[in-house]
């Protein structure tokens, strides 16, 4: 048995209507303890209405570099943006 409690990543929803946002990590023996510790550590001042915890080992991540080839497929698709299209100024509500 490993001597260290596993690492959990913590995500907090600041208020209703907002996304959960990653705030940091903590160690806990199990999921329930991770939730309790997350509450005590990351929401001491009403910073959240909902918390997600997930074992760090269960996360699969891309590299954070925005120039990563992983994101290349969307890089050349300028036609996905509304500004790609020329519409005369006198066309209303467009």
């Amino acid at each position, binding site marked *: 048995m490993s*001597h260290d409690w596993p690492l959990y990543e913590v995500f907090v929803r600041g208020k209703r209507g907002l996304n959960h946002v990653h705030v*940091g990590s903590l160690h806990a*023996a199990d999921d329930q303890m991770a939730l309790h510790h997350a509450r005590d550590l990351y929401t001491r001042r009403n910073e959240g209405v909902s918390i997600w915890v997930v074992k760090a080992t269960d996360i699969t991540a891309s590299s954070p570099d925005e120039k990563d080839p992983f994101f290349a497929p969307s890089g050349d698709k300028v036609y996905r943006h509304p500004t790609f299209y020329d519409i005369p100024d006198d066309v209303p509500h467009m």
Partner: protein
Amino acid sequence: MTDLQEHFQRTLDRDQRLEPRDWVPDGYRKTMIRQIAQHAHSEIIGMQPEGNWITRAPSLRRKAILLAKVQDEAGHGLYLYSAAETLGAERAELTEKLIDGKQKYSSIFNYPTLNFADVGVIGWLVDGAAICNQVPLCRCSYGPYARAMIRICKEESFHQRQGYELLMTMMRGTDAQRRMVQDATDRWWWPSLMMFGPPDGDSPNTEQSMAWKIKRHTNDELRQRFVDMSVPQAEALGATLPDPSLCWNAERGHYDFGEIDWSEFKQVVRGNGPCNAQRVAHRRAAHDNGAWVREAALAHAAKHSAREEAAA
């Protein structure tokens, strides 16, 4: 320059943040881990001088405030350990290094808290100096550290204000209380100035840290900023800062101040301050006494997941 090095340099040049999975030079990683770990250790050890007064706080209000403040410091330590782990450091290893005396923490916490005004002066000066140090770190090039600092800085302003308010209350009290405030100010002023580290001429790592955008200002710049902020605060409080050479220099637009006793600083850093041994021994005892809790929680978790698997 390889692609990786170029990416690292470009990120710095554009004043963007480096994130956990980015390639960084070994030296950057080592420096960052050491700095974040020492910072985390300081928060954790920093609970002790003030924790000393929790049971003896003079009112329920002060006790609740002090307890909340000390809890915050624990939180700061944990945010920072979590940031250090994103660089590949192990939490348990960092704790070992602290209790084995292999990694340092801020020398300020090796001074004793002799009277209750110390709690106020620590909030005012020690947390005040920490804020001066930490605000520029919110723009540090390492993303997880910068984000932890933003979170911490938000909480620190309560720390400083509760301390100053406590002192104002004592200054409105009896002569004995005013003497306590002055005594605490006398003892904490110089160690607070030392919190910014050695003078620029004697700080070999500053240049590299500035190039890596870990540090944004030199030790002496931050120290000067702190002095300039503190003098009017001391005046408003009615306390005297224990430095006869402290005076406004109109030409520089700053306060001049006296020579810091760097030999004292070096002694405390080397482990010979008044409380070094006590602080580390206390941390070690807390860690050792908690071992059975960590083991029991793991055993409990293992039993539960085994039961759930059997039920599935």
